[in-house]
Every structure is written in structure tokens, then in C-alpha cells.
């Protein structure tokens, strides 16, 4: 795999489309076990990201992802702002000077992003947060230096679906304890869209 400014721009655009199209769905998931704003938060944040990236010029993936990070951190009111913002910031720092970003550089970047998410949210795997999607995706990337993009999407999808049976330990849903079981984690669904969009960009690039 290889990512350059153009492909990362496409990735972000696809992700924004999915978020805007599923705004109500994400919000309904958050209504079940949170405060019902995940769709609104993500839709606002990524619309601002698109406004920013479509009116700017970027020479490197690092510069582009840094802008994504700063926009998300300042424009999203909920937990997803600092979490996704930190993820993109760490990815940006990790891929600095690595254009185009190859498989190893990207995998290292996802590792840093996940570390950042975990540092920020103090969450471990299995606590019903978006960590439950990022961690299996990272393992997939580490284990497969070459892969079919469809497999990446499948990994993220299975991981997202597995959050349904977990009892939440972190985030708003944790207040519900056992009652959080039986519902998908909203942040894991938006993270699935993120990796699904990436898989689509990789597919088209082949």
C-alpha cells in the first residue's frame, strides 16, 4: 500500500460522506447508551475538516493530517474530538518526512495513533470504546504486509460488531454498566467508517 496527499484527501472525503449519510444512525446509537450526540459531533467536526482541507494546499501527508487533527480537536464538543484529534495528530507526527507513506510507515502511524487514543481516554481493549476497532486493525496491519483492502474492511467490521456484547467500562456508556450490553459502541461504528473508507481508497488505487 502507498498513501500520498491525494489519496489521504480522498480518504477523508469518503469518511465525511459516510458520516454525513449516517449522522442519524450514529446519533441513535449514542442515544441508546450515551447522550445522543455522536452523529452530530462527528458530522460537525468532519464538515469543518473538509472546509479546511478543500481550501488549503498540502505538500505532505503529515501536514494534511495535522490540519485534520487540529480541526477535530477544536470543533468537536464531545469525547470523539480529543480522541480522533489525538489519533490524527500522532499519525501526522509519525509519518513526517515519509511521503509517500508506505505500509510500514502507515502501520507505525496507526500504532502511534492508537497509543495516543489510549493515553487520552485511559481505555484498554475490551472496554467498549473505539479502541476495540483500532487495536484489531493495527494487528491486521502488523501481520499482513500485503493484503486485499476488502480484508482490512472485514477486520474493522467484525471488530465493530463485537462491541455489541461488551459491558462498557469507559465513556458515558460505563454509567449504564450491564445495560450497555446489546448495543453497538457508537465510536466503534465511526471508526469502522474510517477504515472502510481507507479500504475503498486502497481498492481504487490498485
Amino acid at each position, binding site marked *: 500500500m502507498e498513501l500520498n496527499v491525494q489519496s489521504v484527501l480522498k480518504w477523508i472525503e469518503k469518511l465525511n460522506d459516510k458520516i454525513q449519510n449516517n449522522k442519524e444512525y450514529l446519533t441513535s446509537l449514542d442515544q441508546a447508551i450515551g*447522550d445522543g*450526540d455522536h452523529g452530530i*459531533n462527528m458530522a460537525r467536526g468532519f464538515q469543518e475538516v473538509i472546509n479546511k482541507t478543500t481550501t488549503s494546499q498540502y505538500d505532505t501527508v503529515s501536514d494534511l493530517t495535522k490540519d485534520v487533527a487540529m480541526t477535530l*480537536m*477544536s*470543533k468537536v*464538543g*464531545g*469525547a470523539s*474530538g*480529543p*480522541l480522533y*484529534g*489525538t489519533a490524527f495528530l500522532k499519525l501526522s507526527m509519525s509519518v513526517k518526512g515519509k511521503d509517500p507513506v508506505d505500509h510500514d510507515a502507515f502501520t507505525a502511524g496507526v500504532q502511534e495513533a492508537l497509543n495516543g487514543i489510549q493515553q*487520552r*481516554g485511559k481505555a484498554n481493549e475490551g472496554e467498549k470504546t473505539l479502541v476495540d476497532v483500532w487495536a484489531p486493525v493495527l494487528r491486521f496491519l502488523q501481520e499482513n504486509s500485503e493484503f486485499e483492502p476488502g480484508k482490512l474492511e472485514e477486520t474493522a467490521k467484525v471488530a465493530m460488531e463485537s462491541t455489541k456484547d461488551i459491558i462498557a467500562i*469507559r*465513556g*458515558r456508556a460505563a454509567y449504564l454498566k450491564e445495560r450497555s450490553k446489546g448495543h453497538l459502541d457508537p465510536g466503534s461504528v465511526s471508526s469502522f467508517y474510517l477504515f472502510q473508507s481507507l479500504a475503498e481508497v486502497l481498492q481504487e488505487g490498485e
Partner: protein
Amino acid sequence: MAYVGIVLISHSPKVAEGIKDIIRQVMKEVPVETAGGTDDHEIGTSVEKIQAAIERADGGKGVLLFYDLGSAMMNAEVAVELSESEDVKVAVDLPLLEGSYVGAVESGMGKSLDEVLAAVKKAFK
């Protein structure tokens, strides 16, 4: 005399303002600034609001941040990292109302940032 500043971060602007009123009744000198709600005054928190409150509260002796729920803590930590200052700290896992009240009283005694934070921790651990 400079005092350690107090920043109140809440998902609700009303909560932050209300707590400030309670503190103001007893502590008039200590800088107390609020960062309540999102940029559009909805329920949530905003890094930009927190950064602005830190600047207003900083009289040279540092600033201590109090927050209500989990995502407010994350945004507080982001604001601290962006401030690149050693003199801005978050009161982690401490109650917003009682914690900031104790913090303001301690600050009013002229204590340092670390002393204020230690006193708040001691009061609630």
C-alpha cells in the same frame, strides 16, 4: 498579590457560572474563569474556550483546571498540552464543585500551584 487561577470546565455553561457564583461569595480576589459548553453554547466542552479561560485566569502563579465528566477531562488535557506550560495543571478525578471551592480557598491563602493541588487532593482522597 498574585493568586493561582481556577478554571471551571463543565458541559453546561450554567453549571460553570453557578459554581463561580458560589465561590465568588467567599473568595473575591482569586481569578476564577469559566469554560462551559461548546463554542455554540451547546452541551459539551471546547478546547478553545478552555484555552481562553486559562489565559484569563493566569496571573503568573499558574492555573488549576477542574472538570465535570470524562470528555471534559480529555479536552482539559489537550488544552494543557497546547499551552506548553508547566504551570497549568488538571485536577484529575476530583469533584468540580467542592474541589474548585477548596482550591479557590487555598489559592486565596497565597499558596503555590502544587500546594493548592495537593490540598485539594488531600481533601478528597
